[in-house]
């Protein structure tokens, strides 16, 4: 057999990464935005090169841990890091809040998963982030800005002390509207009030991207429905593997059933059955409660003041 093109004769071996000072999945930076919200920068140069706005990772913090899907909040191709913003709401995220310190390593981080967000040619867009959703909407807003669009940011928080990344958004948004539930910062109201305000001031908005709790995404999609503005949402159903294998993350989109992990996570917000999603998110409520209570109890046991008492 004669092989016409000996392609391996070239020196193309680039798979061996340059010797790195860091271990795989090492946490290189951490910042706490509030008593429950924290940011981790995880070392993964290969993933930092591949990541695109809208994608997510599956993280395992230790060998007997859960596989937790987390949206990529940012990536730095030069530093070789993936940024995750996490809210301590259950056992795993509370535990990670304690254990994930700079210099520690995650048991595993796989990704980037999901289909990257599609940047249409829209010239004026609203990027809406609610609560923790503020983080994952950031790379999308930046990508829109880089594509030359006029970007209006609408960020919603419960109160002023939970606000984070305002500076990052100011740097890339042409306009930024902050909304707080209690009025302690920006406008007093929900993100839907911010969306309405932006729509009143701009009649030529072509697309809205909304990321946050399902109730907030549902309200955002409803706010733009009448005007017929395309509204993309990023769904966060319960997942195990993230590779299209378990079907736990299935969502109803229009007449079809989609798997958020491989068919999404971005979907047309006007087509998504949010009520179905919200019910499905409650599937493990009881197990989550048991695990969280057990974790909280074990933390109390380990407090030195009590252990010695």
């Amino acid at each position, binding site marked *: 057999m004669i092989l016409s093109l000996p392609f391996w004769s070239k020196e193309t071996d680039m*798979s061996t990464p340059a010797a790195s000072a860091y271990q795989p999945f090492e946490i290189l930076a951490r910042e706490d935005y509030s008593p429950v919200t924290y940011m981790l920068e995880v070392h993964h140069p290969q993933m930092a090169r*591949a990541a695109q706005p809208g994608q997510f990772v599956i993280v395992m913090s230790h060998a*007997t841990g859960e596989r937790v899907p987390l949206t990529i909040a940012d990536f730095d191709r030069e530093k070789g890091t993936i940024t995750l913003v996490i809210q301590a709401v259950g056992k795993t995220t509370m535990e990670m809040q304690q254990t994930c310190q700079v210099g520690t390593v995650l048991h595993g981080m796989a990704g980037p*998963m999901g289909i990257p967000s599609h940047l249409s040619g829209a010239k004026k867009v609203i990027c809406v982030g609610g609560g923790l959703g503020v983080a994952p909407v950031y790379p999308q807003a930046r990508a829109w800005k880089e594509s030359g669009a006029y970007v209006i940011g609408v960020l919603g928080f419960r109160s002023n002390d939970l606000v984070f990344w305002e500076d990052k958004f100011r740097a890339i948004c042409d306009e930024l509207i902050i909304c707080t539930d209690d009025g302690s910062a920006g406008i007093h109201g929900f993100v839907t009030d911010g969306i309405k305000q932006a729509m009143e001031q701009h009649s030529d908005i072509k697309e809205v991207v909304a990321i946050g709790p399902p109730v907030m995404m549902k309200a955002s999609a409803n706010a733009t429905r009448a005007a017929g503005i395309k509204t993309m949402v990023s769904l966060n159903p319960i997942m195990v593997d993230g590779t299209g294998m378990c*079907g736990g993350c299935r969502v109803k989109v229009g007449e079809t059933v989609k798997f958020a992990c491989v068919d999404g996570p971005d979907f047309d917000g006007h087509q998504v059955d949010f009520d179905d999603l919200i019910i499905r998110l409650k599937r493990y409520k009881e197990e989550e409660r048991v*695990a969280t209570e057990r974790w909280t109890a074990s933390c109390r046991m380990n407090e030195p003041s009590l252990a010695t008492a």
Partner: protein
Amino acid sequence: MAKKRTVRTIHQERTPVRELDPLIRNRNFEEVNCGYTELEAIRESERCLFCPDPKCIAGCPVSINIPDFIQKIGEKDYRGAYNIITATNLLPAVCGRVCPQENQCEGVCTVGENLVPVAIGRMERFIGDLAITNGWVNKPYIQPTKSANGSSFKIGIVGSGPSGMACAADMAKAGCDVTVFEAFHEAGGVLRYGIPDFRLPNTVVDAEIEKLKELGVKFECNVLVGRLFTIEAMIEELGFHAVFIGTGAGYPTMLGIPGDSLNGVLSANELLTRCNLMRARDFPNVDTPLPLGKHVVVVGAGNTAMDALRVSKRLGAETVACVYRRSKAECPARAEEVHHAEQEGIEFHWLSNPIEIIDDGEGSVHAIRCIRMELGAPDDSGRRRPVPIPGSEFEIETDEVVYAIGTNANPIIGQTSKLKLNKRGYIETDKNLMTSLAGVFAGGDIVTGAATVIEAMGAGRKAARGMKAYLGIRDVGPLRVDGSLFGIDAREHNFTRVRAMV
């Protein structure tokens, strides 16, 4: 052999194998089938007729020289038997447990024409387990194969399931530098996440993976090929000379009936992954939860369905029922699995088809509504087509419905590469299992659709042969020479060095 054996002279009864008591084992995850002892294996070996034209070899997807290894058992030369099996089959401990032997080697066994066929699978497992216990590894002398620029051939394997493992082993034995990429945090693919411990203990999977590592195969977990880097990039940028894709058909099918999305309806893949890979049965000592249904209904009757049924029983469900639209005769599961499930107290509703899952008013499952079926004329698969009997609807109260009705191609490779796919999303290959991209091969479920472990392994080996031809590595194929290791004639040391002249 002193005297020629005939069907009349051999032991008439197949040597039984010890099994755990059904009513004890259906509360634990210990392996059901205890395997043959030495004496049992020898006794069963005496049932082989050593036919001049052994049909069993042809019946085996990887053509194990079955009579020869059985003969070695009779001679108590177990290491010799191991060498013969591993000449063509990398994972005897796995295949002895999970192959559907009744449709393969044992299905065509000559003894089976008159008596119960020789228990080939059980003897294979006996040898495989003995090898693990004694740490036998056949490590051939491997001279690194060199590409034109003097470095080893680099082979990338996508997916660490049975087809990937088989391909990796063959390429490592051919002197290549092999890396297996796995998207999960642990290697093994369906052997790890799918098949439960009571049928295939994780320790067996670990042992078989360890053997691959001994051959020099590297495993990289947490790597989602396609998204972290593409197949094209593996060839064009990452320096792989050839790539094998064995990503399987893991995308579960839902029934598409009302109530599909209710809480409590899940795929067998989800149930099994939570239980096996994530060890959710130990919740809350591990973090992954698994909702325990009291009354579980599993739809489907393949091997995955049997696993889901038996796992549910072991997790503590009070009743576990199987709903299948055809009759027991058509059910695709291994006969032994159905038998074991029946012993363990699983109910079977044959000729019943689900038509609706009924809500409890709060978004969870309350019952499943089915309709009785009868068998009509044969369909394309040759099986008689089930037809609903009007007015025969009935309900089963349940709080958990598991779908085990088949899977589709995993879409990730298709989404991220230009590989040619067929209409159903499976990868198209030529007869050597090469895809539309030069140097990229594919095999197993991602090419054929859902099949068996041994068929996937056969495909992995076939792809390895194609890969060797593509790279210009001489492939000696499995030799039937005594003392040959892994199909390689031990006397031939330059087997990897004969390359095409460029």
